[in-house]
């Protein structure tokens, strides 16, 4: 179906090719998962399939890419629209019209499909993706999962044989991600569509994949059955890592496979006892109480008629990492902004060091509570990293070089003359973190920081967050990423409809939750959250045995 013959892609001004000598054949009706670290060329590979590379992006493509027998050299993306459906990372950015129905029809209008056929296909697609009741809704009012399904539907109506999806679930909460993935697998199974999916959160997709294409980072690709490729992949979902640690063969790809193999491991872990928490557990009775960093009482946030946060009480302690979870639109961001003082707060009190960040000037508020917003790059506006650092020093009245020193501690080796936009997602996040930390706030809040980060960058972020907490700060991370939460958080707060519905020890709250449980917990049962805990426990067994 899709064939890459000796393809090398070089962008203008790049030192090395983004893809090098790629020979690849993706047969019809398969779901292919493309994995690799950020910048390894995943997007280039996907966009070469429908000719956006090089027709739209520029650059030089050697070799041949053919889709369903059509050469992308002679067919620009618009002429391939009826063969390849392309869904981008941010569905909202790709919408052309305003309402669901018009969006579904847009592609067909371009292909001059007769009106009667169009009408029928729109209805079929609405049913196929389960969005019939949304048909007249404005696209901006849909939730993330609904938008993603509409975006899939909008290319599906053109009747493509190939569906290309770039990070379809990266911005979605676990439930919405399941919805979107269920829709995709259904298309592959029922309609025989060939799907190519790139996804950082492999744990969500790998179990459905027929083939994995790995981009190790130097422009080449490795393609094969998932179990084989993942055995050598530098990035792998927790369930695969667990399999590697336990030495299972064949390597399990889904929680279900792993659970079947996990009997002996579970038994030996039971002997080893409960996992040691990453740091002393603040919620365990008997532990010395920690100093309170932030105390919020009855916080209410409303937008017009909508109550985003309904009377939330929250106490944050120094030295603790708290994860704030909940589905999209449950009020997480509103709560963070209200606590920081920059967002609206209609009732309630917030106290940090005896001051209310909502009533003091913005300059003082950021010395009390630092917030890294969801679109972190909104905070950056200068041409170089050094200029941003200098501006941050000035803004918070620190000696020159303070921000730069912080940045070097967080993420060493970022050249000062680079433009913030040219940094990788993880580096940019580090820069924003440094800018916010210069003010030395007691409380640091991160809103969806793992968006667009690969496993390596996420580990790095986990390390930084751990260090900040160890230095005595209270850190709050609002995120959908359960695996990240399992790594960093001691305490988990779950929100729904603007209220806190669960608050407690991470292992208790997410370990027992059907939606938020990390893969290791699903395989081994509640107290075990991460692979590293299992590794430590096994080391304990071994050394214990030697004694």
């Amino acid at each position, binding site marked *: 179906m899709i064939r890459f013959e000796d393809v090398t892609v070089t962008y203008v001004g790049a030192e090395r090719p983004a893809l090098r000598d790629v020979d690849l054949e993706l047969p019809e009706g398969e779901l292919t998962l493309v994995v690799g670290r950020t910048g390894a060329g995943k997007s280039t590979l996907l966009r070469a399939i429908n000719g956006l590379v090089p027709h*739209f992006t520029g650059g030089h493509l050697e070799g041949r890419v053919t889709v369903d027998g059509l050469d992308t050299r002679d067919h620009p993306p618009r002429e391939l629209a009826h063969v390849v459906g392309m869904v981008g990372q941010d569905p909202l*950015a790709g919408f*052309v019209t305003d309402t669901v*129905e018009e969006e579904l029809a847009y592609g067909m209008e*371009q292909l001059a499909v007769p009106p009667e056929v169009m*009408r029928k296909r*729109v209805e079929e697609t609405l049913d196929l993706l389960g969005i019939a*009741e949304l048909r007249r809704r404005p696209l901006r009012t849909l939730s993330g999962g609904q938008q993603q399904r509409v975006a899939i539907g909008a290319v599906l109506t053109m009747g493509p044989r190939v569906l290309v999806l770039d990070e379809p679930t990266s911005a979605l909460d676990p439930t919405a991600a399941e919805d979107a993935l269920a829709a995709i697998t259904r298309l592959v199974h029922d309609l025989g569509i060939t799907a190519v999916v790139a996804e950082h959160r492999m744990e969500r997709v790998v179990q459905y994949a027929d083939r994995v294409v790995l981009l190790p980072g130097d422009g080449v690709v490795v393609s094969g059955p998932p179990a084989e490729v993942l055995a050598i992949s530098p990035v792998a979902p927790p369930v695969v890592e667990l399999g590697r640690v336990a030495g299972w063969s064949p390597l399990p790809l889904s929680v279900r496979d792993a659970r079947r193999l996990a009997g002996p491991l579970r038994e030996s872990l039971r002997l080893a006892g409960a996992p040691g928490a990453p740091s002393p557990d603040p919620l365990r009775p008997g532990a010395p109480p920690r100093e309170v960093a932030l105390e919020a009482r009855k916080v209410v946030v409303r937008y017009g008629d909508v109550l985003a946060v309904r009377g939330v009480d929250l106490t944050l302690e120094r030295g603790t990492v708290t994860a704030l979870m909940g589905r999209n639109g449950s009020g997480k961001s509103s709560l963070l902004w209200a606590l920081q003082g920059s967002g609206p707060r209609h009732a309630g009190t917030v106290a940090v060091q005896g001051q209310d960040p909502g009533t003091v000037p*913005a300059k003082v508020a950021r010395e009390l509570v630092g917030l890294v917003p969801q*679109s972190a790059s909104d905070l950056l506006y200068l041409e170089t990293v050094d200029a941003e650092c200098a501006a941050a020093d000035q803004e918070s009245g620190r000696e020159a070089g303070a921000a730069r020193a912080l940045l070097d501690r967080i993420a060493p080796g970022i050249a000062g003359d680079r433009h913030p936009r040219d940094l990788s997602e993880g580096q940019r996040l580090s820069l924003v973190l440094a800018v916010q930390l210069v003010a030395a706030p007691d409380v640091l809040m991160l809103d969806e920081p793992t968006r667009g980060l690969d496993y390596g960058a996420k580990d790095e972020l986990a390390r930084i967050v751990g260090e900040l907490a160890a230095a005595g700060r209270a850190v709050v991370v609002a995120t959908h990423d359960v695996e990240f939460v399992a790594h960093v958080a001691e305490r988990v707060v779950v929100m729904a409809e603007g209220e806190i519905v669960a608050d407690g020890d991470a292992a208790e709250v997410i370990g027992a939750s059907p939606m938020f449980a990390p893969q290791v917990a699903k395989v081994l049962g509640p107290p075990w959250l991460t692979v590293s805990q299992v590794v430590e426990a096994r080391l304990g067994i071994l050394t214990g045995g030697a004694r």
Partner: protein
Amino acid sequence: MTDRPGTRWRSYYLPRTLHPGAWWVWALGLAVAASRTTNPLLLALILAVACTVVVARRGDAPWALAFRLYLYVGAFIVLMRVVFRIVFGGNQGGTILFTLPTVPLPDWLAGIRLLGAVSAESVLGGFYDGLRLATMIVCIGAANALANPKRLLKTVPSALYDVGSAVVVALSVFPQLAESVQRVRRARRLRGGSGRGLRALRGILIPVLEDALDRSLLLASAMDSRGYGRSAQVPQGTRLVAGACTVAGLLGVCVGVYGVLDGTTPRYLGLPMLVVGLALAAAGFVLTGRRVRRSRYRPDPWGLAESVVAGSGVAVGLLLYGLLSVDPTNLHPSLFPLNWPQAEVSLVVSILVGALPAVLAPPTPLTVDEIRSAGTRHTADLVGVAP
């Protein structure tokens, strides 16, 4: 077979959205009627007709709810006209209402007078003028409230399709820009900025512009991969001819319209130029349109109801034009001497024809109802499944 007319009436009266063109023709008919007269009675009647129809037949979409804005703009125009007459000396006629102290101006501003005596004739003159303009604006507002402006853009001839989609995309950019400005301003506060002053402007402008550029690139690539701009193969020559025809034709139309409206231009620059220009432009459109191969999803059909709505508007325009040409006494109520404006029965009836769509147009479906009925459908399913 006896209930045939009843069924037909019922199927005619099914709730649906009308072709946007019908409402625009209706509204333009009313606006033309309003432009013919300064008689406040007739203008008030036209306003009342427009408001009645809007209230009876608008939906609950955002553009429909913006009608109030047009009414405010209308009121503002009337007010401004009257205020200007008072400020810049309104003492024509003899009926002085009140006298304000005159502001002395230097000699080189001779001919302009500030404040001073204010006559009823001047104030009324301003009021009539303002009311005429306000009525025309409210008529346009009524069209906007009754028909989705974007659907109107979709009905443009296919030669103008690209221009149409550019306008649609541009329109959707504004709310996005506003959103992005708000987001970035909030983010500025996080860095301790006040959100005011030149430095803050730079801090807001650059991220917003970067965001807008990113978005437009993403949108362009999405549109490209969804087939936007696919075209049939047309030889270069035909394309050139089509382009030349369109440009020359539109120029001709401009000159022609000027010629028709301005009595001092030579005759051959008037109507003949207009006709030739229109013909050339039409030829250009047809030639360009042939290049575009596209279909339209759920095009709005033009049915009986559309003809009724459009016809009522055209009728008002024509009737007023005709009646006022025959007997222009009611056209502009006399200010010198000051008289009560009069309105003949025939004129009143003619204008009331414009209110027919309030009853005769099929009702507009409301999205609220749709959501509610979808909700009950959903619960009915649940109840059905439950044991």
